């Protein structure tokens, strides 16, 4: 059983759902076979494949087998949502959340029955059977307080975790389950020469999965063939980021819908915004292009356009329906997110949205949006108004995160000169012995593919 199945069988593509269930069953059987040995299973998933659900259900299964489990993820937000998910699927399971200073669970999560927040030393002394922590905290607790002796270590978002962090945390258990999204942002470093170790077995910035497969190439890797989050209209764009990984949408076409009231009289001045919203509602995508111009990173015109889109979306009484709802319900501001590439863009938008009373609308950089789901996402295109392309803005992981967080519709905001950046020959990129991926060229291809697929949905503003 996987995420999102709530008496809505007739709204799902049963062949896709069955294929995913079969893969999950094989993975769990595989993992149970390996318990007690120094070995691992890797689950590679596309965006919205129900990883967290799979992780929570697998943790329940492992506990039912009497195994002691450590569950970890790279960020505090991610582990907090794992606590919630584990409790939803396994209400009777005691959960020990081990946290750093000032990183306690929010009150509503801490109040869930069976959730405790022991110190690392207490968790070890009590032999808590299920411990959830960030990878960093788990590593620190292992070194400082000797928290270890688990049967299985489960890591969610394992393609986001780097080999350096995994190094210490790996010691807490012999058998590992690594679950992650291959299309998301790779681990990164602000150092000028972060590629110093690239290609070497010691590279601390390779992913946790990367170092595992490099040293143990026989480790089984299972591809989860489903996306629960994205609907069929969103899948072609998402496939740009997962070459060699076939997957389909679990939900059938037409099941999800975004409904807007008609623009009222006197809204001529908002015609491009209304056109973008109508396009997004009818096709699931809209690509709003402002006139081409080289602009600052935190371009005020782009930010204002995004604020107007959010404001107008709510002003037109947006309603949504999906496989989990019996009819249309109002779109809540907290179900809308704005995705950006830079913190100054985030700060500017936060201030603009707050000034319109839209504080519930989430604004985050791509790396903070990883693992999250919203009904509608407005994405500030990474290349918007850029003068030249560079590795940061071409990163396919960043674009992938921005364009795969939505269940209903995604509106991309950029400038009409952005696509011209990809005309001509891609830049020369350095090669590294022992390291095949090339994020710049992969990003170039992914960006081109996305521009092509969004072409029918362009709205000039």
């Amino acid at each position, binding site marked *: 059983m996987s995420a999102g199945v709530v008496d809505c069988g007739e709204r799902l593509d049963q062949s896709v759902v069955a294929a995913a269930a079969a893969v999950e069953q094989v993975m769990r059987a595989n993992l149970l076979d390996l318990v007690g040995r120094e070995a691992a299973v890797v689950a590679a998933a596309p965006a919205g494949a129900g990883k967290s659900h799979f992780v929570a259900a697998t943790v329940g299964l492992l506990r039912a087998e009497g195994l002691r489990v450590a569950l970890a993820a790279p960020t505090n937000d991610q582990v907090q949502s794992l606590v919630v998910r584990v409790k939803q699927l396994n209400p009777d399971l005691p959960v020990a959340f081990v946290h750093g200073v000032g990183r306690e669970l929010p009150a509503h999560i801490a109040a869930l029955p069976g959730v405790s927040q022991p110190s690392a030393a207490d968790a070890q002394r009590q032999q808590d059977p299920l411990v959830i922590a960030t990878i960093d905290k788990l590593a620190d607790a292992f070194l400082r307080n000797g928290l270890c002796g688990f049967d299985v270590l489960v890591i969610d978002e394992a393609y986001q975790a780097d080999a350096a962090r*995994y190094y210490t945390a790996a010691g807490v258990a012999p058998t590992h389950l690594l679950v992650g999204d291959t299309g998301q942002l790779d681990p990164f470093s602000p150092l000028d020469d972060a590629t110093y170790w690239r290609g070497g077995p010691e590279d601390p910035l390779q992913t946790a999965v990367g170092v595992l497969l490099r040293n143990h190439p*026989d480790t089984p890797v299972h591809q989860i063939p489903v996306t629960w989050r994205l609907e069929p209209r969103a899948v072609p764009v998402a496939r740009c980021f997962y070459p060699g990984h076939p997957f389909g949408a679990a939900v059938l076409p037409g099941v999800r819908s975004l409904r807007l009231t008609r623009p009222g009289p006197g809204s001529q001045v908002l015609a491009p915004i209304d056109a973008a919203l109508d396009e997004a509602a009818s096709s699931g995508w809209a690509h709003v292009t402002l006139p081409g111009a080289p602009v600052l990173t935190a371009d005020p015109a782009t930010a204002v356009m995004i604020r107007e889109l959010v404001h107008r979306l709510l002003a037109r009484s947006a309603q949504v329906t999906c496989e989990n709802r019996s009819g249309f319900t109002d779109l809540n501001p907290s179900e809308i997110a704005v995705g950006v590439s830079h913190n100054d863009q985030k700060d500017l938008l936060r201030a603009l949205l707050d000034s319109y009373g839209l504080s519930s609308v989430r604004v985050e950089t791509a790396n903070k949006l990883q693992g999250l789901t919203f009904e509608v996402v407005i994405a500030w295109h990474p290349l918007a108004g850029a003068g030249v392309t560079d590795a940061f803005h071409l990163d396919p992981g960043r674009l992938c995160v921005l364009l795969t967080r939505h269940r209903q519709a995604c509106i991309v905001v950029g400038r009409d000169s952005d696509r011209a950046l990809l005309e001509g020959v891609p830049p020369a990129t350095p090669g590294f012995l022992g390291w095949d991926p090339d994020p710049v060229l992969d990003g170039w291809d992914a960006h081109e593919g996305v521009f092509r697929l969004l072409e029918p949905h362009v709205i000039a503003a």
Partner: protein
Amino acid sequence: MSTAMEALFAARIYAEGQALRRTTLRHVHLADPPLAIAVWRLGGERFRAAAIAWGPLDGPFQLAVPGEPRNRDLYFAALQPFAADLCARVRRAAVSREVRQRGSVIEAVPTDALQIVVPNRATVSALGLLGRYLAYLSDRGGVAPDPVLVEAGRHLRFYARNARVPGQALLLPLDRLVADHWATLLSPFEQANLAALDAQIEPEPGRHPFDASAAAEVSARIGPEPTEDIDRVTGALLAEFNAARSSSTDPAVVEPLAQPLRSHYRDLVEPVWQLMQRVVARERQLTAAPSVSRRFSADGEAFGRHVDWVIPGGYYRTTDTPRQAAITLRRLEDALAHYEADRAVEDPACMIPYLLDGDAIRGTVASVAETKVVVKVRAVSRAVIAVDSPDPVTLPGGKLLWWTATAADQPWQVESVQPNGTGSRVVLMLTAKPTAERLPAVGNVITLSTLCTGRSGFWLLPPVEPPWTHRPDVALLEGEPIDAGDSEQPVAAVDGATVPDPGRYT
């Protein structure tokens, strides 16, 4: 780096005809005098030094020219004086020590580590390669290399690897020093040319800096990579030298024969040496930032540990273990964060990009008040200040900012931002107990930013034994000695035009 700031600099430099300082302080230690090194390589052989010039920068340089650097005997004989001098200087610098206690660790730290300056980052790489080559020389063939070469190799390798540490000053590439302290019209790629940078800072009268840089780029030869015209001259002299010595490596024979090559390289080094002297003298005029001595003191600790390890015969691995790489990554990232924070907090000019990018605010303190808030279960005292910024502020509520006067201490949290005339009024709450040192006075003009100069939390080193995930299933093969093949005669270069069947290369 702020796009807005760069655009402003470009416009002003274009209009004013001269590069502009980015900083009001010097953020790197400069010894008086540092040891300078300049290197030239052969065009076809990146891993051998065809000439090395060295010496205190306030005087003339010494020059080592092996003649034929691909011949091991000639190469080592020429490098020996350089290696011996470098080792002596390192050892001398490590003699004078002061005791320093950090926690329970007591170290004897050199009071003045040896600083080396080089013209550019390419020379740092060249010295790193030279060091790596010399540090692992074997006694293959029954002939042990001069120990001073091996020791010098280890020193060079340490210096080159330590050059990765942001803000370090043990091995200072002058192109980076200048690019960090001056705004120019040069792209990052063009900034690798020290002569082009220098020409833009002090262009000839009446010449636009852009033209001055372009001319300098064409005429100046910095090394270590030779340009084609240099290589053509070197090639001819080398051929004459090899023909005349008839495979002899006898110093009495080769010394006089190498004279033309020596004067060829002397002519190349002379302008580079003068350029380095000019650059260092100019940057030394600037007052050093307060944190410079602390960073150079940290360099001294690294230098002392290196000397204490290497002189008794300690070895370094050729490559990092996964554990070493993980530790190094974290150490370098910490150093970078602190270096950037130190620069901006100490130097108002370095804070401007943060102000423009919305990561800092500057304004006048309009009010200071105390209030009580409940933290967990206790009511505690907190200070609240209102800062009037003349510019509109777009910071979101909840953002943490550090006052530059207490940047190593506790942050302030943004409570609200309201329009105030053409600017904004920002209300902030201190996240710790208010004390006199932590509070500005009404009327003070203060800057708050996202930069914290405090030390990050104490982190523990990862386990020495790697987990199974970081150990390969199969043991790696033993590598061959690093100097394998040195005794083989160099293969003659192939001239493509004379190859009878060029198609064979396809």
